[in-house]
């Protein structure tokens, strides 16, 4: 029976960085992926003259060459930077309420403060105070938590200890009165998947801080280029990858991992498994029930499956200008009541907030000359789609998409008349390609109770490790980072033996 130092299940972001980290350390690694392409969310697909970016809107944590962010450092270490070309976005985002309010923020602290003060003169003094808090908090979190200060204490890091778990909404209400200002500042919630009421200020502040300080990025060739580069380097380092072949079973004995049975029916021996599959489904569907510790399943009771997305991929037969698209990142909202907007994610009703990203604004080469494309998305839970009978599925899909297009037309009139290619992905589509229940794109719901302070991402099963959104947070930077960290933990445990 073939033997591997480690088997990685799933070639998503975390699986790829994990597999590559292990292979680069000289370990014999088998990477299993049930789909035919690496990347998971980090992928693209071709329709007509368009190659659509599936998932990446704004890559966080890159930073410039002169001021590298944490993600750039990781990609450097992994040896893939010379194969990739990154594109910086100048602006953070535009937020628009059709016919009501429209604002664009630059990815620069002073510029944001100025723009907001200009538009919200009544809140002139509160705005810089709020950014002092966001920055002060983030600096403390970086020093105290990320750099693991051995003398961490409430006295030394007062902002961190006061604000880490406070709901973002509470802080916004404390600082501001204008509902538009609150919504403009916190609109990333609709991208992160947690409404301000439940978004811990810690998670929110560090996200806003990181996007402003390290800038949003994209890359040439889209996220598929990153996935391909990671896989290529993995193969160059002696890694073995099998596509169209998922894992069928993780074999354990006496609470320890001993091997993996693949979908093709063969079994390999290993003492370490890094699962980039859903953590919940790893326990439910990849292990024999009697091998799963009782308290492990119990611990899932305090969590819920997180949101998926409803995405419309649009290929236009014109340049962005012609349809009035001037920004890469456009949030469109119909309400400032974010709880209301969030509640709609659990229904098939008209969405309250959506995001339209046109990559060609920052990278004119993204689509072929004379064309451009947009990824137009709203988050949504998978549950309402479970209730749609299969033979009404396509009707339901078009009906929901029609609502989205109607919303887009309020901001970009005439946009529909230039659509040459359109592909629609529901939570069921994401379920199909990602292999996650509910089509969850960010793993579990990430409320304050689901943050790193309460969740263990280690397993009581010896030799079982996790990477991806379930093991950390949703998004490219967190998942890419999680694979790297878990692989390091595996290497550490191997060194001990």
């Amino acid at each position, binding site marked *: 029976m073939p033997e591997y130092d480690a088997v990685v299940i799933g070639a998503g972001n975390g699986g790829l960085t994990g597999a590559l980290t292990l292979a680069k350390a000289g370990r014999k690694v088998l990477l299993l992926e049930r789909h035919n392409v690496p990347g998971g969310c980090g992928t693209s697909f071709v329709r007509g003259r368009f*190659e659509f970016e599936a998932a990446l809107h704004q890559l966080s944590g890159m930073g410039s060459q002169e001021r590298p962010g944490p993600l750039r450092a990781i990609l450097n270490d992994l040896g893939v930077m010379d194969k990739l070309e990154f594109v910086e976005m100048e602006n953070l985002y535009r937020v628009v309420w059709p016919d009501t309010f429209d604002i664009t923020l630059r990815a620069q602290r002073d510029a944001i403060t100025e723009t907001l003060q200009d538009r919200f003169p009544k809140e002139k003094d509160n705005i810089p105070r709020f950014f002092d808090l966001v920055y002060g908090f983030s600096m403390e979190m970086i020093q105290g938590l990320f750099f693991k200060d051995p003398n961490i204490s409430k006295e030394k890091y007062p902002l961190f200890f006061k604000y880490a778990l406070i709901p973002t909404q509470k802080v916004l209400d404390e600082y501001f009165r204008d509902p538009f200002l609150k919504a403009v500042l916190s609109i990333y919630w609709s991208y992160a998947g947690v409404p301000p009421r439940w978004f811990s200020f810690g998670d929110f502040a560090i996200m806003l801080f990181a996007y402003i300080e390290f800038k949003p990025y994209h890359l040439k060739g*889209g996220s598929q280029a990153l996935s*391909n580069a990671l896989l290529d380097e993995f*193969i160059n380092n002696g890694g073995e990858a099998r596509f169209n072949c998922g894992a069928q079973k993780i074999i354990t004995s006496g609470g320890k991992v001993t091997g993996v049975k693949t979908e093709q029916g063969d079994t390999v021996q290993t003492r370490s498994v890094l699962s980039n599959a859903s953590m919940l489904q790893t326990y439910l569907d990849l292990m024999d029930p009697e091998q799963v510790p009782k308290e492990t399943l119990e611990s899932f009771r305090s969590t819920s499956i997180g949101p998926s997305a409803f995405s419309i991929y649009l290929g236009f037969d014109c340049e962005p200008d012609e349809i009035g698209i001037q920004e890469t990142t456009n949030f469109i909202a119909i309400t400032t009541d974010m709880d209301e907007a969030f509640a709609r994610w659990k229904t098939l009703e008209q969405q309250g907030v959506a995001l339209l990203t046109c990559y060609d604004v920052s990278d004119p080469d993204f689509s072929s000359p004379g064309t451009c494309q947009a990824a137009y998305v709203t988050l949504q839970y998978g549950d309402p789609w479970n209730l749609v009978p299969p033979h009404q599925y*396509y009707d339901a899909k078009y009906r929901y998409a029609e609502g989205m297009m109607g919303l887009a037309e309020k901001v970009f009139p005439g946009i529909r008349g230039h659509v040459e290619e359109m592909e629609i992905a529901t939570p069921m589509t994401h*379920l199909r390609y990602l292999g996650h229940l509910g089509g969850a794109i960010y793993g579990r719901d990430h409320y304050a109770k689901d943050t790193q302070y309460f969740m263990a991402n280690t397993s009581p099963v010896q030799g079982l490790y996790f990477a991806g959104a379930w093991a950390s947070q949703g998004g490219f930077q967190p998942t890419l980072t999680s694979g790297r960290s878990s692989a390091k933990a595996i290497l550490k445990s191997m060194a001990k033996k």
Partner: protein
Amino acid sequence: MSLKDVIHDIEGYQNIKSEIEVLKKYGFDHGARRGQFDAILEMLHPKSLRLRVSEIIDETKTTKTLRMVPVQGYLPPFQAGQYISLVVEVGGVVTSRDYSISSSPSQIGYFDITVRRVGDGFVSEHLLEETKQGDEFTSSAPAGNFYYNPLIHGRDLVFIAGGSGITPFMSMIREVTGRGLDRRIHLFYGCQWPDDIIFGQEIDDLSRRHADFTCTTVISEPPVGYRGHTGFITARLMQEILGGLSEKMFFLCGPEAMYAFCREELKQEGIPERKMRTEMYGPPRNVTTCPGWPEHIDADARVSVSMKGGETIMVRSTEPLMNSLERHGIAIPSLCRSGECSLCRTKLLKGRVFQPEGVKLRKSDRQFGYIHPCMAYPISDIEILLP
């Protein structure tokens, strides 16, 4: 000291801790979700289908419809215009072919596929001559991008069908007329001879009963005394019948030559790309006539294909790599067999292949040396990494 020791000092920590304890007792037991993923996927997007031929219907002298019912369970939904990739074993070679579903999506009990004999098509020959009621097949789930999108395609549609290219349109016509959907369809149906017309009777009946469905048949090789439209489906004919082509959405399905001709005709009339949707048509009949084919390689050229860590085989340069692999009993995943869907995506380690224009490779796949073997022709000795 680490965060662990002071974590309870974070404001709100204790409250959340107690909330979690309550939830652990009374929260949802996710154990109930065991097996749920496969069950959901099976309803909408099964990995493959097992089908049984329940009936064989003679359509024309050269065409039959195979009515397929599920061996067990249900058929997944599809969009009119989509196809299934049917796995067939002929003379010891396992291969697959795509067939558009010709029955309506509203018909949830069976899929019809309508097969016409192709000149040298050993698969169609097999399906028409050898297949009997009760035979079982494996197929893919419905796939493909040739379908109507109500958000952008409007309600005024022109279908241009050539020969057996009528099959996806039949599904669309049956759906629109059957459900009474608010769309107007005019079908231009090009056939070589009058007795080549598939579904002739049904098309006549439907156009008589539905004011919003009309049809013009065009015969390219009419017998003496034929009184209908003859020749090709020209822009002039379309103008004559439809009285203006703007604001209409055109769908084309038929042989390679028809696309080249009709698309050009429509372009001349000022119809933009976004108003034409074309079904793919598989590998070219003769790859050596494709633009860019290296002249020094003739039709009989043979090269070697080595699979990393495996065997080496000799293949013809003018046959798609996927077909050559299948001839040697090496099955790689396939679906569209037209270079589009990327399911067969394979890494080329050494050597060169020719991929005709229209093969839909991702930019970064090109950069990292991936090819689509269903439309890749090895023009030197090559080495590949099987997926």
